[in-house]
């Protein structure tokens, strides 16, 4: 069997994928509109890519590769505007957020493509339950060994990404008490969680070869890890974020990840050991459940502090790198999230005002359109 080849890419380049919700403008429930939208989108020029996802109620947008935050946010806005222009014409609402607040998963229909139908057959109701919406951040790495180092060094910050992006407090019509209920749907998959603790690309290839020959996986796509290497792009892919309510927030999160990656690769501040994973699932649960107020434990030092505070400390350490990467505006936005609360909090507040979940979805649609 061919080993996976890690394609070299320019270090610290960025790419973002966002899964977006398609809702009708009558009662704001998810609607089947992806095929109609894609047929129209294909007819007008736009940057990036707009693609189908697993169900007809979902659409994925992805940017091209960027070195700097300002260009990334500019392109995300252009893609959004192109998509919304078509959506307006077809009377479809497009919204961010990690999960639809009141849709019923049994109503969803799987897209008619071989891959999606295979996933649906294999996972049964999980595939439909998986109607959740995430942001994926790609960070370019010069080589496979760098990627594996960065992946494990980044694991410590996974709770921060969860808490900063959390935007799925409501699910199936109820307040779940979680800030990110979306990740609970992801954890149900057998190959979710964290990547195995291997630090070099050849070692990762050994692991992958064993999994493949054992018949457990066929390709990298079968892994649903929180962070996974993407050898054909030459990147690592952070997959824990809920899709934020605005594309600007999505760009800021990507810029935060970029600055963090720069620091980790240049300063190598923490030793990367398997012990770092001792508190991993505990911290991740805290982030999903309590968001920025969740508690983060450092397994080695035993220090515990709120995740929001940990983000603030990280921001201080990233200031130099953000200046180099021209992403200070993004860091200010991240600081604002810590100060003012994440999207999950915004959603709970809007629900408290409007008292109806359709009304909340309507405001999500407006917020994606208006930005921030």
């Amino acid at each position, binding site marked *: 069997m061919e080993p996976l080849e890690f394609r070299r890419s320019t270090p610290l380049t960025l790419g973002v994928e966002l899964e977006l919700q398609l809702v009708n403008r009558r009662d704001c429930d998810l609607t089947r509109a992806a095929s*109609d939208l894609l047929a129209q989108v294909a007819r007008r020029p736009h940057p990036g890519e707009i693609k189908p996802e697993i169900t007809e109620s979902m659409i994925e947008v992805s940017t091209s590769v960027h070195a700097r935050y300002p260009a990334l946010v500019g392109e995300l806005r252009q893609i959004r505007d192109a998509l919304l222009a078509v959506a307006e*014409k*077809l*009377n479809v609402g497009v919204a961010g957020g990690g999960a639809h607040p009141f849709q019923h998963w049994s*109503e969803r*229909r799987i897209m008619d493509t071989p891959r999606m*139908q295979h996933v649906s057959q294999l996972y049964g109701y999980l595939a439909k339950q998986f109607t959740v919406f995430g942001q994926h951040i790609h960070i370019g790495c010069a080589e496979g060994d760098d990627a594996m180092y960065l992946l494990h060094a980044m694991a410590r910050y996974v709770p921060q990404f969860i808490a900063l992006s959390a935007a799925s407090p409501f699910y199936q019509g109820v307040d779940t008490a979680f800030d990110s209920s979306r990740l609970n749907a992801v954890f149900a998959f057998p190959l979710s969680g964290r990547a195995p603790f291997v630090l070099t690309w050849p070692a990762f290839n050994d692991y992958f070869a064993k999994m493949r020959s054992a018949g457990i996986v066929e390709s990298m796509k079968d892994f649903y890890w929180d962070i996974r290497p993407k050898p054909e792009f030459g990147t690592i892919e952070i997959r824990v974020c809920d899709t934020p309510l605005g594309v600007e927030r999505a760009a800021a999160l990507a810029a935060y990840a970029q600055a963090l990656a720069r620091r980790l690769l240049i300063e190598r501040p923490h030793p990367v050991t398997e012990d770092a994973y001792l508190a991993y699932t505990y911290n991740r649960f805290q982030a999903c459940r309590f968001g920025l107020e969740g508690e983060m434990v450092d397994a080695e030092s035993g220090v515990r502090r709120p995740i929001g505070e940990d983000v603030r400390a990280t921001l201080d350490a990233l200031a130099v790198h953000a200046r180099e990467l021209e992403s200070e505006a993004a860091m200010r936005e991240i600081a604002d999230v810590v100060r003012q609360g994440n999207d999950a909090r915004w959603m709970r507040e809007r629900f408290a005002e409007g*008292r*109806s979940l359709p*009304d909340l979805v309507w405001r999500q649609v407006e917020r994606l359109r208006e930005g921030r």
Partner: protein
Amino acid sequence: MSDLFFLPHFPSALSQLPWYALLLFGAVIAGEAVERWLRLPRLLGWIAVGAVLGPHQLGALDAGGLEALRPLLDIAIGMVLFELGQRVDLSWLRRNPWLLGTSVLESALAFGLMYVVLLAAEAPPLLAAAAAAIGIATSPAVVLTVARDLRAQGQVAERALLLTALNSVYAVIVAAVLLAWLARDYAGDWRVGVLHPLYLIFGSLALAAAFAGATLWLLRLLGRRHEAQFFCAVALVVIAVWAAASLKLSVALALLAYGAMARVFDRRRLFVSLEFGRVGRILLILLFAISAASLDWSLLASGAFVGALLIAARLAGKALGVLALAPASGMPLRKASLLALALTPMSGIAIVLMHETARLYPQFAPALAAVVVSAIAVLELLGPLLTHFALVRAGETAGEVR
């Protein structure tokens, strides 16, 4: 009175009651059979049973029995129109003005072509125009029922509902204007020709606005109690139907506008999921069965030729209108063709219009009815089939892809 007055004697005062039950029972069984074995819309079964039991076939239900059920039909039609009004999103027309163009064009072309056919069949011009106007309307009941049974979502379904609501409104207005002219020809007073349509349109809209405001106020008062809100809505729709009919306004226009305004006024989206559920369902079954029962299917043979031409002209007009503006309105031609097919059903509003016409101008109704009835009879069965076919082929139904 005989000594044995307590023993039953036939026919009893309630003689129609078992037939109503039989109608409902038969319609439901036939509907399920059609759905399960033929995979076609249930309402075809309801229609078939109604037609068979009606006065023109088996005669189990006589004309008097049908007349006794009229109030239920009025309520059913009111509910359908209200629901359709609530479903359409008028702001869509602002965001995609080509849709408004499409709706005007398909209605105008269908009207024009039907008018030509009727003139060729030597109908008097004004009468031909009135019949053509009635033909503009797509049946809200059929499109709504078929779309809901298939749980269809997508551009064909959404646009079919929107265009149905709009062409129903056009049909009401154009028919009102033409009938007013007809009346003027006879009565010789021009003021009737102007005042009657104005009264009909603005009176209906004012009534709708008043009811929409009252509904939202009442629903808010009741709070988030679904049961209470539901019954409150049913009661208000019934009163609205009564009010529109008593004021000699257009029931169709008033109820459609009522639904649409109830939605527009509901800024916080508190009542978006208001539906008539099972109660609405029973009434809908009766609506289809009884409309079919009251149709004189024997006219089908005599009017078949003109009827077929009329149907072809109507379909051609709608298809041309929809296809012409499809690219501009953001719809591929394949889906636009399906949309045109989905607009075929004709019955609900046409029947209402005929009843309204009969009430206002008894002298014209028979002539008008004879022309339209054969077309309605054919489309009664063909229409639901085409809408069903269009939504299935458009891939917009809830069924799993296997």
